[in-house]
């Protein structure tokens, strides 16, 4: 087997290590190795599918005369969908000035945004796990069960918001 005189000098097949200056500058990238590849068309489809699911759930409750629950599902779910659509609109209209949260919740986040989001979800999950273990003990010790369950979503939402902001500033 023949060896090149200078192993550091790559041959025509570029099999050796690349020397500085021998790398061709990359073209402007239309795609990115780091950004979400979900197209706007697919994002709209996901939003519409979620809206359809929401209407189906609300309709199911309404079919069983659970009107207040159906209304609650529509209000809460509609609010979330509206915020997601608004986040997507702001992310696309603001361009490079879009905030991390706007990019994350519109599906246009890059790898750093994804890390912030996953870190937040991990912390919220951890807190939920710990809370699920501690709340029954607290109820047994006298804490009102309705208060315990009612405060849980607020605790998790607050944890998520604080963690998201902190992680975004530190990352």
């Amino acid at each position, binding site marked *: 087997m023949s060896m090149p005189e200078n192993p550091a000098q790559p041959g025509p097949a570029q099999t050796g290590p690349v020397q500085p200056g021998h790398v061709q500058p990359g073209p402007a990238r239309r795609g990115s*190795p*780091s950004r979400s590849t979900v197209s706007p068309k697919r994002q709209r489809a996901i939003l519409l599918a979620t809206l359809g699911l929401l209407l189906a759930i609300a309709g199911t409750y309404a079919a069983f005369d659970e009107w207040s629950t159906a209304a609650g599902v529509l209000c809460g779910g509609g609010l979330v969908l509206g915020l997601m659509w608004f986040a997507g609109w702001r992310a696309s209209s603001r361009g490079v000035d879009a905030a991390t949260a706007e990019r994350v919740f519109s599906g246009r986040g890059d790898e750093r945004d994804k890390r912030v989001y996953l870190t937040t979800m991990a912390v919220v999950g951890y807190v939920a796990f710990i809370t699920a273990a501690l709340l029954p003990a607290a109820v047994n010790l006298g804490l009102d069960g309705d208060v315990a369950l009612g405060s849980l979503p607020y605790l998790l939402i607050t944890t998520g918001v604080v963690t998201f902001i902190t992680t975004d500033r530190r990352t």
Partner: protein
Amino acid sequence: MLNDVRALREEAGLSQGALGALLGVSRQTINSIETGKYDPSLPLAIAIARHFATTVEEIFHVDA
């Protein structure tokens, strides 16, 4: 991780937003990389190196 992204970007006359647009990431990501708060993934590090016609090792330096 220490890196020379800011120096290379300023030498090329690019803003953080412009470089981010070329690489397909946000301006915040470029800023976080330059300040050492965020280490890019391997594909992004390679994309940065290719954009500036150099190697990953020339740009990113393991902390002493």
